[in-house]
Structure formats: C-alpha cells, structure tokens
C-alpha cells in the first residue's frame, strides 16, 4: 500500500496503490502455484496429464490477467482514495478483535470466546452499559449451546469452562 496525501476530503491510502497490491498479491500466489505445479509435474504421465497440469495453466492465467490488470491501473491513475484513515481504523477495530477471537477459540472454547467478543465489541465500539453488554454476551452463547449441542447434536469446541460445568 502506498500513502498519498490528498488536498481535499481527508487522507488515506490511494485506491491505485491498493489495486496494485491486490494484483501483485494475486500474481504472487499464482507464482507459488506454478512452483508447486512444476514440482509434481505438468507434462503427460501414465494416467494422462500429470497432477500439476491443470494448476499450472490456471496459475499462468492468473499471472496474465494480473499483468493486464496492473497495466490498466497504471493507465488510469485518478488519485482516488481507497478509504480514509478513520474508515480503516473502524475496519481494523473489527479485524483485530476477530483475529484475537479466532486465535483464542482452541484454548477457551467457542462459547467463552464468543461471549468475550460480544461483550468487548458492545462495550468499546457500541459504548453500551456493562449490563447490556454482559446480558447479550451471555445470552447468545447460551442459546447457541442449546441449539447446537442439545437440539441439533453438533459439538462445538469447548474449553476449561465447559469442562468445569461437566460437558
């Protein structure tokens, strides 16, 4: 991502910069794909085309398409903003807690982690009083527990808290 300052309407990364990043990232993934395909062979084997045949040409298509996309980005530089920093801050305010949540699931179990996520989200982003946040945060995992574990018999990851309760 490249940073450009604009004369009007707040600042943020330029749309062009992000577009370049996305196209380059796709091409990079495709390069990895080509490398992996070459390792298993892209030619003709005993059972027809080898395992790497299809992913090789598919990756090649991604690279060609990304090259065209990159060329188009440079042709149409308009200095548009991708998003303002304050908008990106809001996006990060979701991404970071979600990342922590996802990382915590194997250790805390999904129910406790979910309760913490909802409470934290409502308390700090929604500025709700503790009582509402804790109420919703406790109710949603509880109902989920009833629905999945008891009614539909689908087990979800559980942690020390559930073990303590005897599940």
């Amino acid at each position: 991502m490249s940073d450009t300052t604009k004369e009007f309407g707040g600042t943020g990364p330029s749309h062009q910069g992000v577009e370049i990043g996305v196209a380059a990232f796709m091409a990079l993934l495709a390069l990895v794909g080509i490398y992996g395909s070459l390792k298993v062979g892209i030619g003709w084997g005993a059972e027809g085309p080898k395992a790497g045949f299809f992913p090789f040409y598919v990756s090649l298509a991604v690279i060609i398409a990304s090259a065209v996309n990159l060329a188009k980005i440079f042709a149409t530089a308009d200095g548009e903003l991708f998003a303002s920093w304050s908008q990106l801050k809001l996006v990060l305010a979701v991404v970071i807690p979600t990342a922590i949540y996802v990382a915590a699931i194997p250790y805390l179990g999904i129910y406790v982690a979910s309760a913490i996520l909802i409470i934290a989200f409502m308390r700090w982003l929604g500025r709700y009083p503790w009582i509402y946040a804790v109420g919703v945060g406790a109710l949603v995992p509880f109902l989920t527990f009833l629905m999945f574990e008891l009614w539909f018999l689908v087990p979800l990851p559980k942690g020390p808290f559930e073990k303590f309760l005897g599940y």
Partner: protein
Amino acid sequence: MLEDIGNLIHGFAVVVQPFNLLLMVVGIVLGVIVGVLPGLGGANGVAILLPLTFSMSPTSAIIMLSCIYWGALFGGAITSILFNIPGEPWSVATTFDGYPMAQQGRAGEALTAAFTSSFVGALFAVVMITLVAPMVAGFALRFGPAEIFSVYFLAFCSFVGLSKEPPFKTVASMMLGFGLGAVGLDQVTGQLRLTFGVEQMLNGFDFLIAVIGLFGIGEILLTMEEGLSFRGSPAKLNLKVVFQTWKELPRYWLLSLRSCLIGCWMGISPAGATPASFMSYGIAKRISKNGHKFGTGQIEGVVAPETAAHAAGTSALLPMISLGVPGSPTAAVLLGGLLIWGLQPGPLLFTEQKDFVWGLIASMYMGNIVGLLIVLTCVPLFAAILRIPFSVIAPVILVFCAIGAYTVHNNTFDVVMMLVFGIAGYFMKKCNYPLAPMVLAIVLGDKAEEAFRQSLLSSQGRLGVFWSNGLVSTIMALGLIALFWPIIQAGWERMRGRPAGLRAAE
C-alpha cells in the same frame, strides 16, 4: 411428462408433512432475517446453517436450506424500500423507486408490489424448472467427459462476458479460485500437490469456508467502513393497502412477463440475479411510457427488478439440479450440501433420487407461497431487526460465521482461514473483483479438471476432442460467444450505427 406430474404430486405429499412444513417456516423466517441483516446474505446464510442439517434426511435438509434462500430473496426488498439499504446486491435496483415511494408514505404499496412481483417471478421460474429440468437432465445423461467439460466452460465463460466487473478481474478471481480448489489431493492420480508440506493444506480449501469468509466477514468489514446510520420509514402494511395494490398490479402483466423472461435467462446462465434486476429495470425504463418518471417512486420501477431478481434466483437452481452446475453462489452452497448428504449432483439425481428432486421442486412452490404470506404479515417485525444497532449485530454475526466455519470439518484452523478469506474478500470487493466466480471455481474446480483430463486422456492429448461432435462443438461455441460477448455487442452496435453506451444493462 405425465410421469413428472405424478412425481410432483408425490413431492407435494412429502413437503406437506408437518415436520417439513415446520422446517419450511423456520427456513423462510431465518432467510428473511439473513436477507435483512447487513453482512449476511443468501450464500453465507445457507453456508452457516448447513451444519444444522447434517443429521436430517436430505429432503428435509434441502427444504429448509432452499427456504432460507427464498427468504433471503424476499428480505432484500424490505431493507431496500424502507431504509434505502439494499440487503442484497440484487435489491439495489429496487431502491431506485422503492425508497422514494416509502418517503412519499407509500411504503406499504411498494412492499406489496415488491413481494408480489417476487412471488410471480419465482413462480414463473419454478414452472419453467418443472417443465424443463427433467428434459435437460435426460438429455445430459448422454454426456461424456468432453461434453461435461464444455458445460463448465460455458458456465465460466458466461461469468467473464456477462458480469459487470472488468473481464480480466473476473478471470483473475476465477482462475485463483481454480488454483485454490486444486490444492490438496489430486482426484485423478491420488497425488498430493501444492501443499508444500503444510499439514493443514492436505485437505485443500473448502469452498464453504471461502463463502463464509468472502461474503460474511468481508461484508461486515465493508459495512463497518461505511458507518451505518439507519433512517427508516415506518413499516405499516395493512390488508387494505395490500388488496388495493393487488388490484393495480395486473395492469403491469406485460412488464412482469418480460421481467420473468429476463430473470430466467440470466439465472440459468450464471450471470445471476443482480445483473438481471438491473437489466430488467433498465429495459422497463426505456419501454414504459412513464419511463422519464422512473426514480421518483414509480411502482413499475419496483415490479421490474424484483420480478427479475426472483426469477433469476430461482432459475439458478435449474442447472444445479439437472446438470450439477450451480447458477449462483447460493446454488453452489446447496450443491455442496448435496455432496455432504451423500448425493451426487447431476442428471442422475432425476432417476436415482426422485423423492429428493421432486421434494425440492414441490418445496419451491410451497416455499414461495408460505414466504409471501410470512413477509406480508411480518414486515414490521423484520424491520425492527434492522433497528438493532450494528455494534450489537456485528459481533453476533461474527460468532455465527465462526461457528459455521468450524462445523464444516470440526476444525479450528478453518476459522483462521475464514478470517483470511474475509480480509481478502474486503480488498477484492473494494477493488471490484467479483467474488462469485471465485467461489464457483473452488466448488467446481475438481470436477471441471477431472472432465478436462479424462477428455484429454481419451483423445491422447489432442484438444480437438472439444470440437469432435456437433453437441460439444455447439456448447463450446456458445461458451466462446459468452466469453467475447462485450466485444461482439460493441461491434454489433457500431455496425447498426448506435453508440455502445446505450446498452440496456447499464
């Protein structure tokens, strides 16, 4: 033909069992909620709720899941008209005239028109499916690998040629999807590929995870960025308004019929409901004598896109049940469900799983009738859901997405992948890369590759096998036409001396 009618009646008998009727109502209600909430849509709503059906019979499961889909289609209209926020991409065109109508105090009229035309569109498409699907399936039974590959080719080419997004972005997104789908075990040789020794990649990327991440998490991030402020019109819908509007609607029968046809055509080709609704709106605007007033609250401006969107959303299931090629991301998720329940999608369904197929078709009829009744009576309830602030809804949706992702394989690593797909989806959406072709490519990658390699094997590597007989050549040629459609259209209009900018789809 007569046999089909008998099967359909048998299907109705399955559907009206109390348990299935209950699932239908539950499905519709969940679907409308999913359609109303930002960040949840038909595709990932169905993906998240898919695990709940693992213990059901396939017929009951498909009834519930397809009803979620109908519900989502209905739900999109509520938010478009009352809040000017399209709950689903295919309801964007509905906001153009629906929201002005609501501002003028004609919300009830707009909602009734939207629901009724949705119903008409869906019904038209279901009748079409009932008549056409068995024939298509019977025809497709004779397909060899080359023909099967040509059908996939046609499906993916239509994406490139017909979608609104830049063609090379569609290609990049689609091919990346094929690449992701190829990771893991190679179906033909049984060899591992592209795993680079990472244990978690042995099973490849599951498209359900991709759907939940790309459409669910990605959508929440987008909504967050826009910062939601709801200023909705009051949702009142009394019977008098409903009947008054119904009296008025038959006047627009020609418009409805045209929108149905557009919707069915766009739904079968995987272009989907969104372009269908825009196209129908655009054409209605050009043809109607009130065309210049469109955008100020014309009822025709609600009827046209809603009819087409529903017809397209419903007919997207035709290629899914008859050929095994889904016409939309939601249809793809339903197809994934079939695989999980142990059914092999494709033309054989019609001969081997009669109960299932006809149960599904019967549930399309019943589901839309039940759906119409539910949305007409419960609009204020659903509108109330939208008034719940996003800072409460967002974490709850995140939790459901995580549960949905986990339950696909009972694997916490999948939840991590969901977040990765979510962030990728945010950037792709912002940069105008279409997500649907990527998802369909992940789903169909294995099958398309298998068909491709089997065809090449039988021809000893000569690509001529895809032009070896009339049938396969025709389908491949159609695919190429779809692929280069924008160029063909531009050339055609230049020849007729019209500027290319006057295209109806815009």
